[in-house]
């Protein structure tokens, strides 16, 4: 139980935390704009872009760097907030879109619409495919491991969904008539922000925003849920509706994120895990800060990807996995110790 003083302190420190994280995201966003493969005078490029002068510098800034940084922030926010929401709903620290198969299934949905030309004719089909995949996986997850089952069942359900979705993604890529498709599985499994243009930003932002709104609105109910399902019900929260709202929100944010960048793992695991102590383990306030933290992490990882002199460029999922896997190990170790 929290003391009154602690609660008061928390109420004061929460806005500071949000503003601090937002400032961090903004700083990383600017660094991301400044980093790239072509020497660019950022000041001049911004000046040209604002004045509408079609110089090469302005072109690189507005058509390559800006969409990349925007997608990095949007996708990171989606993954972070969804991780926090799933962990709150399942009351399980390992519930993360990548681990429990939501990202993998979203990739399958996106791959199906992209390689068979549906996304080419109706561009909205790409995020919708991802969202459908993510929704199907989340629904399946609840059927298999819904409502406070043990960590073991949840993880096993995730393993099953992940490997099934991965196999079907591989199958879809093999069946694609384009000879390049097969080699592109790495993108869908590991993710990348490289060369995704502005049209993609515009395509997914509305869907993601709806997803975030659904998840953020579930904050108070998630707080109530920490007291147990029955108490939450007695407090007036409709647990069935909450589940639906979170499944929808997760599917919209992760589904559209994965559809443009591929599956990027561990963001939804690491970020809520790091920030949970700062919000006194309350799942409601954790949502927003996890979104911001996720954006900061993916932006930082994407900056790192471009600074490491490897060609072709490293996939961003490689970096997040290197950071995230030790967290997973430590979490599993701690859960084992508790058991």
């Amino acid at each position, binding site marked *: 139980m929290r003391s009154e003083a602690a609660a008061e302190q928390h109420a004061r420190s929460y806005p500071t935390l949000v503003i601090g994280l937002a400032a961090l995201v903004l700083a990383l966003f600017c660094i991301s704009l400044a980093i*790239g*493969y*072509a*020497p*660019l005078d950022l000041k001049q490029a911004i000046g040209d872009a604002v004045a509408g002068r*079609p110089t*090469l*510098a302005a*072109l*690189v800034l507005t*058509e*390559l*760097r800006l969409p990349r940084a925007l997608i990095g922030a949007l996708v990171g926010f989606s993954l972070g907030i969804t991780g926090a929401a799933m962990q709150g709903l399942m009351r399980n620290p390992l519930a993360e879109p990548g681990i429990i198969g939501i990202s993998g299934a979203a990739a399958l949905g996106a791959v199906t619409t*992209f*390689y*068979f*030309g549906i*996304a*080419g004719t109706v561009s909205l089909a790409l995020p919708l495919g991802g969202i459908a995949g993510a929704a199907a996986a989340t629904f399946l997850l609840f059927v298999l491991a819904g409502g406070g089952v043990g960590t073991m069942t949840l993880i096993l359900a995730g393993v099953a969904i992940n490997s099934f979705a991965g196999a079907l993604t591989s199958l879809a890529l093999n069946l*694609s*008539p*384009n*000879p*390049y*498709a097969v*080699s*592109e599985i790495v*993108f869908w499994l590991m993710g990348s922000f*490289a*060369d995704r*243009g*502005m*049209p993609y930003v515009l395509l997914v932002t509305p869907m993601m925003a709806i997803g975030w709104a659904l998840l953020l609105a579930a904050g108070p109910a998630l707080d109530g849920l920490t007291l147990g399902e029955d108490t939450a019900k007695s407090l007036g929260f409709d647990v069935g509706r909450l589940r639906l709202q979170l499944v929808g929100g997760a599917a919209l944010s992760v589904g559209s994120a994965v559809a443009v960048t591929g599956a990027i793992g561990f963001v939804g695991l690491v970020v809520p895990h790091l920030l949970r102590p700062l919000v006194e383990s309350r799942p409601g306030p954790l949502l927003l800060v996890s979104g911001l933290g996720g954006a900061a992490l993916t932006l930082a990882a994407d900056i790192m990807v471009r600074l490491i002199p490897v*060609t*072709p*460029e490293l996939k961003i999922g490689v970096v997040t996995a290197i950071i995230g896997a030790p967290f997973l190990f430590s979490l599993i170790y701690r859960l084992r110790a508790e058991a």
Partner: protein
Amino acid sequence: MCDSSHRRRPGQRTKPRKKAALPSRRALIGTAMIAVAALVGHAVNAETADRPNKPRRIVSLNLCTDDLVLRLADRANVASVSWLSRDRGISNVADLAMQVPINNGFAEQVIPLDPDLVFAGRYTARPAVALLKRAGFKVLEIDIARSLDEVRDQIRMVAGAVGEPERGERLIAEMDARLDELARKVPRRRLRVLVLNPNGFTSGAGSLVDSIIVAAGLKNAAADLGYTGFGQMPLEKVATSDVDVLILNGRHDGLPSLATELLHHPVLARLPPRTALFALPPRFWSCGGPAMVEAIERLSHIAAGLRATEPSE
């Protein structure tokens, strides 16, 4: 599909299924083939009959060797070429390839054909090549041609191997005549050109595409930027390279992939007008062969068109 692509020739029906004693069995089949050839004379033309040493069951496992084999050897002597050569987007001999059986680069498809000569690329179908060599088949591995001289050498080599050296010389003479024609039009200014391939790869110094660009009287911007061979170039660098001509080497057949999607990135469409954009399909430059002369012609045609619109100094 299996049946249609591996129709056996009459002589092979006598082949025992045992795996052992391969060379002696092949010799036996060879004798049988000559005997059968006399009976099925309509399948073997008169020229072939004149040269009994000419390979009669040629198999090619690589798109580039397919191109040369189909152009140089008699169709009746080609037992199988790779499935890629029927793809009009990347192959220059798709029509010829429709007339012969195809393989997918698997040894299992090749061995039943009992080939007397197998062509393979130096880097493709490696497991099949290793297996075929171990089984005692004659395998000729052809390297990737990187210059016009290497293309001439390869044409001579393949023509000799299939027993048609005159055809090889004729093909080279035709190529050289067209190249001489182009060489007469010496450009005033060498335009800078960049070739962008799917996945953002570009061809730098020492590559086949580089020699095509140089032969067309243009300058390869990728080579100027320090790229050698085949290397990935970030779109940012492409956008700021400020070249005169940007060539997108992609197919436009509506088969989506991330690799080809890169060629449709909005930044390329918004490049300033001093950079001219052209699409040239991969079949011109995927292989060093007679088609590369066509690529050179197209490039110099593009350059001539651009120079005509330039204000004269």
